[in-house]
């Protein structure tokens, strides 16, 4: 198929960006979206032009490195996939595809489609861990039974890949789904309960500091999340936060 691409080009964080049109031809429907971008870049390099910078790494939907806001949706039109798993069979011959970076105050553009998501890391530094030192003498892994339901729910929350699609999809650029997922994973496990009060307070404080917006329960984040992280996690975080503040 032949396609027109409208792509955000911005040479660095300070520069002013703009949309630029490109044509690509003979795109196979079996290609992944990023392989289509590879074709475009190879074409640009061979013409002596600068290729489009975009983040990507594992190309199997798990590292969370790829981003891209495609036709107004984080990770494009398909559900439950990242951009690297999006396939060209979702598009048809003659389509015009708009490709922008994830946009949020807390995700400044570095170049073209590459954004800086280190704010997510800083939220994790604030409390995304259990304080346990490495030792060969930690108690036996089976000494605290955990109900299968709690373990499975914790796992569902822990599935978050930290891509930032929730933030990019939210009209308030809120990071509540991301933070809620991490808070929930630990809140659901006995190991995580010990530090639960400090954790939720510190992570929420850092989230606010980074300039993420508030949650107004629209639910776009859940719809666009490539890993199906549930809004329940936001509710759980709110409950944890409230009870932490009441307990002090």
């Amino acid at each position, binding site marked *: 198929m032949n396609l027109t691409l409208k792509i955000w080009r911005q040479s660095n964080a300070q520069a002013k960006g703009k949309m630029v049109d490109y044509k690509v031809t003979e795109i196979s429907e079996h290609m992944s979206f990023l392989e289509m971008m590879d074709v475009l870049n190879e074409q640009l390099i061979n013409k002596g032009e600068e290729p489009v910078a975009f983040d990507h790494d*594992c190309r199997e939907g798990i*590292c969370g490195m790829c981003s891209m806001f495609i036709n107004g949706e984080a990770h494009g039109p398909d559900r439950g996939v990242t951009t690297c798993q999006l396939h060209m069979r979702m598009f048809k011959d003659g389509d015009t595809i708009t490709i922008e970076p994830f946009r949020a105050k807390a995700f400044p553009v570095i170049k073209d489609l590459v954004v800086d998501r280190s704010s997510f890391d800083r939220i994790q*530094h604030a409390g995304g861990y259990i304080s346990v030192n490495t030792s060969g003498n930690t108690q036996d892994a089976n000494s605290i039974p955990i109900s299968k339901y709690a*373990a*499975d729910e914790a796992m569902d929350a822990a599935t978050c890949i930290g891509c930032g699609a929730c933030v990019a999809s939210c009209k308030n650029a809120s990071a509540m789904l991301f933070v809620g997922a991490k808070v929930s994973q630990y809140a659901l496990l006995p190991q995580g309960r010990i530090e639960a009060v400090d954790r939720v307070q510190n992570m929420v404080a850092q989230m606010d500091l980074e300039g993420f917006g508030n949650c107004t329960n629209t639910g776009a984040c859940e719809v666009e999340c490539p890993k199906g992280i549930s809004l329940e996690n936001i509710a759980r975080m709110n409950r944890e936060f409230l009870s932490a503040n009441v307990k002090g």
Partner: protein
Amino acid sequence: MSVLDSKVPKGPLKTKWTDYKNHIDLVNPANKRNIDVIVVGTGLAGGSAAATLAELGYNVKTFCYQDSPRRAHSIAAQGGINAAKNYQGDGDSTYRLFYDTVKGGDYRSREANVYRLAEVSANIIDQCVAQGVPFARDYGGLLDNRSFGGVLVSRTFYAKGQTGQQLLLGAYSAMNRQIARGKITPFNRHEMLDVVKVNGKARGIIARNLVTGEIERHSAHAVVIASGGYGNVYFLSTNAMGSNATAAWKIHKKGAFFANPCYTQIHPTCIPRSGDYQSKLTLMSESLRNDGRIWVPKNMEDVMAIREGKKKPTDLSEDERDYYLERRYPAFGNLVPRDVASRAAKERCDAGYGVNATGEAVYLDFASAIERYGIEQAKIHNITNASADKIYELGAAIVKAKYGNLFQMYEKIVDQDPYKTPMMIYPAVHYTMGGVWVDYNLMTTVEGLYCIGEANFSDHGANRLGASALMQGLADGYFVLPYTIGDYLSHEIRTGKIATDTPEFDAAEKEVTDKINFFVNNKGSHSVDYYHKKLGNIMWEKCGMSRNAKGLKEAMSEIKALREDFYKNVSVPGTATELNAELEKAGRVADFLELGELFAKDALAREESCGGHFREESVELGGEQEGEAKRNDVDFAFVSAWEYKGEPGDAVLHKEQLEFNEIELKQRSYK
């Protein structure tokens, strides 16, 4: 003393590690605060090492090319992590895990290292559970296990099909705690481009800030390389796009010997390639072989009919199918080790039985598992005379619970529903057992320079068993390196801060800058990928699943010629002072173009078949094992450690003779 002293402690195998730990020198907590350690790579090995060293009190700097440590490619490991917990009561033990790993590695690994690995494996599970890693559990609340290839027990712990992700996030969380305390300084979007040696000791690195292009000097009392494997030398592999050998190769060029580069794991269950534009291959976890049965049609007419779309795989009756692994290896069936499963798939496809248009695919079929689980569920739920549809529905639900995310991934890529029609799979490059040579302390042949995880050669011999990569990465990082490096650093307490304004740092930085300037000014006619794909093609055709002397000699000269062409005609757009993905790739491909040649040289020198290295000249000619790989223990029971001498083709071979005191060398039989 030979440079290849493995430094394995004396004494009985079972007490070596404990005795070693009891007698090493320690660094007191106050002195640890004055010692700096650099860790390159933040996957399972690097991440766990960085966190643990920081907990101990050392000042740690971590480097990763991704935008966050959490994105290292360990995250993509699906199936699980082995540990000798014997929670299933099925006869597992430290010894048995050790034995399976040495046997699975085709008797080409170091006994003492593997025993230590098996010994600390149980601690890893304890540690990860304490960190909040949500492993799968059964209804009683205890940890669940599954089985992997090449073993007869269930010792694999897992978190759905995302075990690597959960373990990496565990290590990342441990890092985060230390970052918050200021004990780890993370340098993300940074790439190490050289190691700096002062008086023979590793004292720092030169790194490039990938956002600004700035070249930076970082000093330390010890440098740890945890940068993963070199599978991307094949261009197409299951590695991440950015996975590279640069850190490992640069230290090789500065004196670290490179061991067994030809030991590469070609994983049997990957999604087959579909076209020339393909950028990477996707793995389907080996855990699928617990329930999936691998087959091709028995009759060539059916193969042709399927390829032409006239028949569907589900149209073939049981006796029209060749479950070739069950036929050839009745004892292990579909759970033979990876190298055996891969070669068997290649054998069938080479014979013309491949089931897709390219002729390079076999079926992985879940129909029998769905039926088996369905019948079991019907019984559990007291449903009498369940219809075939009901049984299918019940069975599919169980399969979905076990492998749902893998099935979804397959469907998204291939656009076929694996619940209804068998998956198509074909082997792909996945893991490299070879790597930087290290001694028992995980130190390379350069003092103060360590190498851990997939980047080193140590524990898997010539073939790695499933779910053992995660085990090794975390064993090295959490439980081995923090002890061994302390023994070395105890002699560094009087060294003081290491200056970076020295001639050694000047020289290393100049070398790096010259290379970068060369690339951006070369203005050639071909892209970096053009060369990478050509290299990958040579590697796959001549250093792939089976190798012969003629092909390997050709590979050596073709790679050399390609490298010369690369330096004449490669084109790197953009500048050196900005985010420039093509420039990053150019440096990595330049290193692959050297590593590939050494790879072929190593494969040529090893005139035996062992593990992932299959030499067509070395097969069993008769008897029950006819056609199987033939190992030669008399002449080749050694580690090949290569010393760099200016050109990869001129590398000098050093041998570390392998001694087997606990395990009798046998032919690996899975029949």
